C-alpha cells in the first residue's frame, strides 16, 4: 500500500513537473518545433528589403536540414505588411494570437515596428532583433521585450564624430538631413560624439522633406556657409542628387555619406563614381562583392549556402548578408536557451551575449548585450570611395550610444 502511494505521489509529481516545464515554454514551442513570426514588405515601395526575410527563411532551411536547434525544427512564418503600419498591426496580431508564434524576429522597418512596439511589450512577446537602425529599440527599462540588431543611426554618427575629432578637430561641418526621426537620430549621434565641441564644429544645418523634388537649395546654402565637411543624411534618391549637385557646384568638402545610402549599385554608380571620389561612409558587414573576402571561411560558407538554399537571391545584394548574419545570431540565442524556451529565457539569452561573432560581420566586430544594453552591434569601420568601390581604412570604431567623448 505504501509503495502504491509512493508510486502515485511520484507519478503526480512527474505529471506536475512535465506540466510546469510545458507551461514554461513559450506558445509555439513543442518538442519538435519552434514557431517564429516575421513581418516584411513583400509588396509596396520598400519591397527590396524583403530579400532579408527571404535570406532568413533560407538560412533556417539550412539549419533545419542540419537537425534544427536542439532537435527542434524552426517554423519561420514570414508575412507581408507592405511597409504599412496598420497592416503590420493586423499581421502581428494574427501571428501572436492565431498562429501563436513564440516570438517575432527581424520585423522590418521603423514605422512598422513602432506600430506594434507597445502591443508586443504589453503582451510580453519578444520583438527580437528588429531590422531597423532607429535608436529607440534599445530601451530595456520601458520596452524590455524589444531589441534591435544592426548598429543604430546614432552609433554611426558617433563613429564619424570620433573620426573628425581625431583627424580634423577644426572641421566646419554642414549637415543635410531628412526632417524626420531617422534624420534627427543621425544628427543627434554626431552631436553626442562631438560632445562639447559640437556647438563650435557644426556651423550649418539644412533639412529637407521626403516630398521635396530636389535637395538643390539646401546644398547651395551649405556650400555658402563655408563648411568644409558635409554630413549627408539622406535616403538613396536624395543622396545621389546630393553627390551630383556638389559636383555641379564645384563644392568638394569631406563628404560623410550615411550608410543608409552607401550602396554602390543603387546610389554611387547612379550619381557617377567620378563625382563621389573620396567620400567616407561606414560599414559593419562584409561586402559580398569585395574580392578581399573571397578566401574568407565565412564568405565561403555564405557563398555555398546562397548556391544551395537561396539560388534566386542576388549575391551582390548586401541584404542577403544581413539576413544571414541576423539569422545566425538568432540560432545562437536559441541554442544558448537550450530546453528552457520560455519567452523570458529567450529574452534573457538575447540580452546576455558576450563577444559573439556573427558570421559575415567585419573582422573585429563583436556582439555584446546585457540586461541594460539592448544594442547588439555598435561598432563600425570607416571606408572611403576609391575608383569603383569602397576601401575600408582605420580601426574598428566603437559607437556605443552614450560613449561620446
Amino acid at each position, binding site marked *: 500500500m505504501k509503495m502504491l502511494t509512493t508510486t502515485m505521489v511520484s507519478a503526480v509529481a512527474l505529471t506536475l513537473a512535465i506540466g510546469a516545464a510545458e507551461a514554461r515554454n513559450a506558445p509555439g514551442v513543442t518538442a519538435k518545433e519552434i514557431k517564429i513570426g516575421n513581418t516584411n514588405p513583400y509588396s*509596396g*515601395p*520598400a*519591397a*527590396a528589403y524583403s530579400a532579408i526575410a527571404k535570406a532568413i527563411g533560407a538560412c533556417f532551411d539550412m539549419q533545419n536540414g542540419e537537425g534544427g536547434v536542439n532537435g527542434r525544427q524552426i517554423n519561420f512564418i514570414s508575412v507581408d505588411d507592405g511597409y504599412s503600419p496598420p497592416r503590420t498591426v493586423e499581421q502581428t496580431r494574427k501571428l501572436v494570437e492565431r498562429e501563436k508564434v513564440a516570438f517575432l524576429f527581424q520585423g522590418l522597418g521603423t514605422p512598422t515596428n513602432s506600430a506594434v512596439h507597445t502591443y508586443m511589450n504589453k503582451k510580453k512577446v519578444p520583438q527580437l532583433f528588429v531590422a531597423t537602425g532607429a535608436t529607440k529599440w534599445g530601451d530595456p527599462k520601458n520596452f524590455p521585450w524589444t531589441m534591435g540588431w544592426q548598429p543604430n543611426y546614432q552609433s554611426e554618427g558617433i563613429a564619424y564624430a570620433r573620426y573628425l575629432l581625431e583627424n580634423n578637430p577644426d572641421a566646419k561641418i554642414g549637415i543635410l538631413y531628412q*526632417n524626420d526621426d531617422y534624420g534627427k537620430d543621425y544628427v543627434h549621434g554626431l552631436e553626442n560624439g562631438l560632445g562639447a565641441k559640437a556647438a563650435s564644429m557644426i556651423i550649418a544645418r*539644412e*533639412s*529637407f*522633406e*521626403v*516630398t*521635396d*523634388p*530636389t535637395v*538643390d*537649395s*539646401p546644398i*547651395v*546654402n551649405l*556650400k*555658402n556657409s563655408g563648411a568644409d565637411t558635409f554630413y549627408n543624411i539622406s535616403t*538613396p*534618391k536624395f543622396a*545621389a*542628387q546630393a553627390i*551630383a549637385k556638389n*559636383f*555641379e*557646384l*564645384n*563644392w568638394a568638402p569631406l563628404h560623410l555619406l550615411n550608410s543608409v545610402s552607401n550602396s554602390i*549599385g*543603387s*546610389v554611387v*554608380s*547612379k550619381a557617377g563614381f567620378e563625382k563621389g571620389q573620396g567620400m567616407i561612409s561606414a560599414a559593419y558587414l562584409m561586402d559580398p562583392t569585395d574580392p578581399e573576402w573571397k578566401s574568407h571561411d565565412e564568405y565561403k560558407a555564405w557563398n555555398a549556402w546562397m548556391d544551395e538554399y537561396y539560388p534566386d537571391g542576388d549575391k551582390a545584394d548586401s541584404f542577403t548578408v544581413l539576413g544571414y548574419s541576423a539569422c545566425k545570431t538568432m540560432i545562437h540565442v536559441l541554442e544558448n536557451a537550450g530546453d528552457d524556451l520560455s519567452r523570458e529565457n529567450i529574452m534573457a539569452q538575447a540580452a546576455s551575449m558576450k563577444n559573439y561573432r556573427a558570421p559575415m560581420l567585419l573582422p573585429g566586430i563583436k556582439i555584446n548585450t546585457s540586461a541594460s544594453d539592448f544594442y547588439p552591434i555598435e561598432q563600425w569601420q570607416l571606408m572611403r570611395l576609391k575608383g569603383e568601390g569602397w576601401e575600408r581604412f582605420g580601426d574598428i570604431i566603437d559607437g556605443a550610444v552614450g560613449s561620446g567623448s
Partner: protein
Amino acid sequence: MDLFIEQTVSGLATGAIYACLALAVVMIYQAIDHFNFAQGEMAMFSTYIAWYLMDDAGLGLPFWVAFVACIVLSFIGGAAIERIVFAPISDAPVLSHIIVFIALFSMFNSLAGFLFDFTPKNFETPFGHTPFIDGVISSHRVGMIAVTLILLGLIYAFFRFTPIGLAMRAAAASPESARLVGVRVGFMLALGWGLAASVGAVAGMLIAPITFLTPDMMLGTLLYGFAGAVVGGLTSPLGAVIGGFMVGILENWMGTFVVGSQLKLTVALVLIIVVLLVKPAGLLGRVVVKRV
C-alpha cells in the same frame, strides 16, 4: 550676394521642373476642365518607358529615338485612358472622376514599382551635366529651361492659331454648344488627354536626370506644379510657366532667408491658398463666368 544669386538661379532651375509639369496640368485643364491628380504618375510612368527604350537592359535605342517614341506612346496611352476609363463615365458627377484619378494615381505608382523596382535609376540627358556657368548652373538645367520655353511656344500656338486647338477649348468650356456647332467632343477629349500625357512625358524626361528616376519622383513635384499652374492661371500656358518659375524662386528665397528649410513645402501651399483667395483666376488666367 553670392548666396542670393545662387539661390535664385537654383530656384529658376527647379522652377523649370515645376513649369514643365504645370504646362501638363494646364493642358489637361483646357481639355477636360478638371485637375488630373494622376498627371504626375502618368508622366513618371512615361519616363520609365523612355528609360526602358534607352537603357542597355531594355532596348538600347539612342536618346532622340526614345524621346520621340516615348511621346508617341504616351499620346496613345493618354488617349486610350480617356476612351476606356473616362468616356463611359462622362456623365457621372465630378466626385466619380476624382476617385478614378486617385485610382489611376495608385495604379501607375504600383505598376512602375512592380515592373521597374524602386531603386533610383539614372536617366540620360542629351545636354550633358557639364557646368554651363561654372559652379552655378549645369548644361542640362539650361537645356531644360530652353525646352520648357519651346514647349510653351508650341502649346500657345496650338491653342491660339490652330482650328483644332480652338475646337478643343470649346469642347472643354461648353461641351453642348461645341457639339451643336459640329465639334466632335469625345474625340477632342481623347486628343486632350493624349496631348497632356505627351507634355507630361517631356516634363518627366527633363526632370528625371536631376531628381533620378524613382516611382515617387513626381509625388512632391506635382504639388509644386499645381501651385505653379494655380498662380499663373489654369487656363494660360504662359501663366503656368511664369507661375512655375515663381514658385521655384520664391521657395528658395523663403527657405533661405525667411522661414528656414523646414517650412519650404508650406510656402507652396500657402501660395495656392493666397492666390485662390485674392485672384482666383491666377495672374494670367481668364475669369470664367458660368451661368447657373
